[in-house]
């Protein structure tokens, strides 16, 4: 066995042992579900059939899954996509189109061996050439979204070894690249269908695209040749079709569920969750997603009194941190449903780090005392938030009043995204109440947001800490998961001490559905199409 092979096996074993064990636990909680490789459970075989009507908060912006972000929590098109690798209910990386992979010792070459039974929806085989074509299309700024492109920014070249083996060479060593070839956002479309990518995309996911009426309805039908099977050998998915209905307003989705117009909704209003669970438990089931994203307060540390290089910048930022009452936000904004955070990952996540230090406790008197000591009482600070998300605005309102209480001269304004980005670029803001979607690969957070050279950090916060940078880069080159957790724990402790970014809450999400719907559970961070679960194993009681 070569050194390369040994290294890869170790990495793979680690991934699989964990995901399989946790997967079993999850599925038991879910009431049992089908998945490949699991022991048989004594339950009736679900039958194929039925059309699921699913109301989502958003609709896709466009159809081409490379040019647009196919957000895997709520975008209808996510059910049509699949990638080299997949994720399971615990958001762990599991095989997708690629069934095995090797990582070279120098962490610069990833070799993926593909399943031989995977087809695109038009019947073309998903082979190494198709994978190479897709990755190259996603690396081209002319044909891809920046978010997708960023996943592949370390790729130097893609080579086809044989029909079912593709080799990816990286520009720099990376132990985390597997996280960059999951179907979100690196999904595969049929190369011979590129001309219709904007009108009728051809993917290789569990459902096939049929039609899209923007803001009205998306229709998908079961892909009969999808490669996943249940423990009985039946092809997944079970459902014949899904009809997605975008309904922006939380109450509208809930009403549609209650009137029987839809079978499943995502993203209930926080204020409805507790009452709905109590009042309608006999008719409807709910699924709690503990961390669809992480809420945080960014402080502008590029210039001004809070800057990294300002003489009292750190002390002032800590004064801000002491002014923030996370418990109040927890109750008022999230109705007591959210985890409070002291790092990016909540207790619900397999990447949770219990050893994080230096979280600043709520102590407004300490804030006032710092301001008095520095003779900076009534220091102006502009709180900003994004219009699209109510919880960000509500958090900003509370933060605004907390800062006033602590002796800052705070203002509070809400902007839509383009204006806010202009404000970032012009340094015309102080504290941003924001959030980011859950990162199943921690490097996706630390390298893209915390690292001093990360584009998003440079645009917004401007955080710079050489020790933090060093730890993030070291973690990127570390295979051992526990060692990486230690490194990230240290990163978070330093971030907390610098207080340029204050973690507040894991953003929760609750989905609800009719009791007729069986075998469905979204991943713990919200994706509804997951390996051996979610929409792929959903079925109706009548067909059981």
């Amino acid at each position, binding site marked *: 066995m070569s050194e390369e092979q040994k290294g890869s096996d170790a990495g793979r074993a680690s991934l699989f042992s964990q995901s399989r064990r946790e997967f079993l636990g999850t599925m038991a909680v879910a009431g049992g579900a089908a998945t490949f490789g699991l022991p048989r459970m004594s339950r009736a075989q679900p039958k194929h059939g039925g059309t699921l009507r699913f109301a989502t908060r958003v609709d896709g912006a466009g159809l081409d899954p490379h040019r647009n972000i196919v957000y895997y929590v709520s975008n209808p098109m996510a059910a049509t996509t699949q990638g080299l690798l997949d994720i399971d209910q615990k958001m762990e990386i599991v095989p997708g189109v690629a069934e095995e992979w090797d990582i070279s010792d120098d962490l610069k070459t990833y070799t993926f061996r593909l399943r031989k039974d995977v087809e695109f929806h038009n019947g073309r085989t998903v082979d190494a050439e198709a994978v190479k074509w897709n990755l190259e299309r996603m690396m081209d700024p002319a044909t891809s979204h920046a978010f997708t492109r960023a996943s592949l920014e370390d790729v130097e070249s893609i080579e086809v070894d044989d029909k079912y083996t593709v080799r990816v060479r990286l520009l720099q060593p990376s132990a985390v690249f597997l996280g960059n070839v999951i179907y979100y956002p690196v999904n595969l479309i049929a190369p011979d269908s590129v001309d219709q990518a904007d009108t009728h995309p051809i993917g290789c996911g569990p459902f096939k695209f049929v039609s899209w009426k923007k803001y009205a309805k998306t229709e998908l039908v079961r892909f009969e040749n999808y490669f996943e099977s249940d423990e009985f050998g039946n092809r997944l998915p079970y459902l014949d079709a899904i009809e997605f209905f975008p309904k922006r307003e939380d109450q509208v989705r809930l009403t549609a569920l209650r009137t029987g*117009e839809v079978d499943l909704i995502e993203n209930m209003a926080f204020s409805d969750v507790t009452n709905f669970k109590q009042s309608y438990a006999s008719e409807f089931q709910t699924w709690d997603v503990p961390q669809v994203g992480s809420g945080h307060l960014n402080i502008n540390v590029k210039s001004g009194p809070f800057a990294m290089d300002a003489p009292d910048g750190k002390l002032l930022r800590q004064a801000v941190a002491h002014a923030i009452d996370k418990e109040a936000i927890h109750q008022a904004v999230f109705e007591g449903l959210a985890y409070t955070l002291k790092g990016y990952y909540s207790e619900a996540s397999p990447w949770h780090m219990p050893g994080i230090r230096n979280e600043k406790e709520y102590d407004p008197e300490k804030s006032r005392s710092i301001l008095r000591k520095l003779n900076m009482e009534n220091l102006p600070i502009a709180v900003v938030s994004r219009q699209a998300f109510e919880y960000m605005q509500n958090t900003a309102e509370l933060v605004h009043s907390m800062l006033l209480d602590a002796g800052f001269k705070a203002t509070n304004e809400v902007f839509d995204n383009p204006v806010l*980005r202009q404000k970032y670029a012009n340094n015309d803001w102080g504290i941003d109440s924001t959030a980011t979607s859950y990162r199943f690969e921690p490097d996706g957070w630390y390298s893209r947001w915390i690292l001093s050279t990360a584009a998003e950090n440079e645009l917004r916060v401007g955080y710079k800490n050489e020790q933090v940078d060093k730890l993030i880069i070291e973690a990127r080159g570390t295979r051992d998961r526990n060692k990486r957790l230690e490194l990230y724990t240290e990163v978070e402790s330093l971030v907390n001490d610098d207080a340029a970014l204050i973690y507040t809450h894991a953003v929760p999400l609750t989905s609800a559905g009719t009791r007729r719907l069986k075998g469905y559970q979204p991943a713990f961070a919200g994706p509804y199409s997951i390996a051996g679960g979610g929409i792929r194993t959903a079925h109706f009681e009548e067909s059981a």
Partner: protein
Amino acid sequence: MLVYVLNRILQLIPVVFVLSVLVFGFVHALPGDVIDSLAGDEAAEDPEVRAALEKEFGLDQPIYVQYAVWAGKVLQGDFGKSLVTRRPVSVELLERIPATVYLAVVGIGLSMPIAVPLGTIAAIRRNTPTDYAAQISSLIGISIPEFWFAILCIMLFSLHLGWLPSSGYVSPLDDLGLSLTYLVLPALAIGFRQAAYTTRLTRSSMLDEVHKEYVDTARSLGLPERKIIYKYTLRNALIPTVTISGLQLANLLGGTVVLESIFSWPGIGLTIYQAIQLRDFPVIQAGVLVLGVMVVTINLLVDILYRFLNPRVGLS
């Protein structure tokens, strides 16, 4: 008549030209950079990406060149491509405008047969219980916010009675019967408020008319009261009602964003609102321009309708 209509159509040309300049100017004056939205969070600062996108969408040209190129294409029926979906804007609009027109026309259409007779009867029976009932109901209609009335309708007809779907849209071309079930509640929400306005307007117009000398003359000549009211008075009283209803219809074409959200109705208002949030300039420009043209066209039709209501109205 034909000359009048042609003349009015010619007058529309400078109006539409000014409108197009204003629309184009305002859209480009919106705060926030479209390239930021297009490039995404991680690449907005990459000069190469920015340059490529600017070139792809012609945003690297001076603003007047951009306008000239856009206007030239619009004259040929080409509104360009959406920056977000990459689909032709005309396709985007053609999917939305019929839904909005359908809702607005039926909403107004529901209101008129109720409001005009009610306003007329209220005026004829002034200061009677019928008049008070009409005034109170119209006051309620004006006072209740449309969105709240919509929610009440959903609670009653969808949640409690289960008679109608709470939200969604089906094209009448796909399934007329089903389409009407989806239409009833939003049309009712619009129609109730419009009926309230129109009732009050018809009543006050009628009161003005019935006190005019020609009505006294008609009565002194022994004409039946019914003939005086319905043949002479009402026709004159309807002129302001038609004017205002025309304006209300024009207003509804782009002003039902809240109702479109509540009923998940895929109309043009919601589309333009979303396009503004995404800074999808071609969609905003085309959407607002098309709505503007529809408004001036409705005004033209209203003017022509005057002629039928009152032949004495000059068409010069």
